[in-house]
């Protein structure tokens, strides 16, 4: 472990630790957690904490069993559709004050705070009321929950977009469509990426609640059945699958993609 003396810092031990040592500690923590769980599980009732191998087998079922895999794919489809819808509506709403400046107050001080303050649970219940227990309900509610995140992020992007760049674009042509496609949208790219990343993480946090209330398939529906049958193994398996999927998507898709966008278009 490489250690070196650094400047006086009342909050630290004044020693630096190498990245390799930190990584080893993280792996050791994961291994210790799994071992502790495995060792403790025979002594704990299964409904409180099922054994890790039972959870692993149930997680595999969600990949092998077509019926369970269908639920997983349904949730994935719900998240994808809602994320797309929230992104498009957010982009349109964020563009309104850009195209019609008189609407700035309406979007920034009325629409945005209202959407931001509206409860996710409220959207889920209203969706069931208006559309019944359908896929549309789930997609509508999740999209409504995600909308303020994309709207606020993209609006911020338009506000801080380089004014000089926009002015320069205007000096070349007065066509608004060209400005939009060639200057404004590329300048928004890092903000779009950030909005998608935030939306993706939040969508997985809320989609299960919405599916539980307004869906007849998907992970949320499966969890509702598991809850009624005291089936903690399925509960742990679904949580494990979601954590693994979101972690991998963040690490292997969104983080590299965001780095690429930032390199190409500049950081947020």
């Amino acid at each position, binding site marked *: 472990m490489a250690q070196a003396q*650094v*400047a*006086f*810092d*009342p*909050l*630290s*031990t004044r*020693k*630096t*630790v190498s990245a390799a*040592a*930190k990584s080893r*500690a*993280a792996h050791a*923590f*994961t291994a210790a957690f799994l071992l502790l769980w495995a060792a403790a599980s025979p002594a704990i009732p299964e409904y*409180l904490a099922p054994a890790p191998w039972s959870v692993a087998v149930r997680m595999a079922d969600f990949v092998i069993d077509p019926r369970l895999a269908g639920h997983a794919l349904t949730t994935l489809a719900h998240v994808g559709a809602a994320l797309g819808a929230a992104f498009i509506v957010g982009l349109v709403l964020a563009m309104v004050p850009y195209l019609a*400046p*008189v*609407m700035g*107050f*309406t979007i920034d*001080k*009325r629409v945005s*705070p209202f959407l*931001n*303050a*509206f*409860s*996710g*649970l*409220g959207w889920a*219940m*209203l969706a069931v*009321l*208006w559309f019944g227990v359908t896929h549309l309900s789930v997609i509508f509610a999740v999209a409504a*929950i995600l909308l303020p995140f994309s709207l606020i992020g993209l609006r911020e992007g338009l506000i801080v977009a380089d004014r000089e760049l926009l002015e320069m674009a205007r000096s070349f042509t007065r066509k608004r469509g060209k400005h939009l496609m060639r200057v404004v949208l590329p300048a928004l790219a890092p903000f779009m990426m950030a909005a998608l990343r935030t939306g993706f*993480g*939040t969508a*997985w*946090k*809320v989609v*299960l*609640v919405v599916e*539980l209330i307004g869906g007849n398939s998907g*992970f*949320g529906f499966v*969890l509702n059945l598991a*809850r009624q049958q005291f089936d903690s193994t399925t*509960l742990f398996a*679904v*949580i494990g699958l*979601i*954590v693994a*999927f*979101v*972690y991998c998507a*963040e*690490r292997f898709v969104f983080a590299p993609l965001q780095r690429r966008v930032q390199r190409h278009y500049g950081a947020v």
Partner: protein
Amino acid sequence: MPRAISQRLVGEGLVLALIAVWWLTAPRGSAFLFPGPVETFKALLAMFVEPNFLVHTLASVWRVFASVAFASALGLALALATRRFPITEGIIYDRIQPVLLSFPSLGWVLLGAIWLGTSDITVVFVQTFILLPFALGQFREGVAGLDRDLLEMGASFGRRPRRLIWKIAIPLLAPHAVAAGRICYGVAWKVAVVAELFATERGVAFLMYQAQFRSETAEMLAACLAIVVIFLVGERFVIDPLAHRLGRGR
């Protein structure tokens, strides 16, 4: 007409127009699908006036503030742990934080109900763990950005660590504490109140769920609007003054 005034006129005018359209199009009398604004605002007023509704409103409010405080304190403690013991950095930022960030909120609700039963403590526990990754993210930035030179300069005036922490480190972390509190407060009302569905029999979200079962749509919509009102009032009269005070303290 100055631009700000015309923008404001359009904004407020559109809100009024929307309420007018709602009033004109809503069916008269008992409406299941689409209650009118009068019915809804009566139910909304009851949330803050009638004792049997007020109990639910106040229960949600104290739980949200408690869980924001707990999540912020835990987030700060974890972030400071990485500074005090750098070996824990990988554990906290590469294991605990990503898992907490991707952990579905319903997962916490069901686990909380299984492990702790239905009580106020369960709701606060669930909400705290839903909010924790957001608070940790803010304090991570704050602790990483603590100015070593400033701390060293402080140390040159007197080496008492407690004084340095109190006089330099905490004021430097104050803006991050405010940001953590603000984000957690928003997420709490937007997402974390879901804990009230299965983990308690009091709270605005519980009321909303019950109203849906009884097909009391006006009451359900009023509960949604009550959350909007509480969120905006809390932000204006608690979070903003706190941010102002901490900013001035700095």
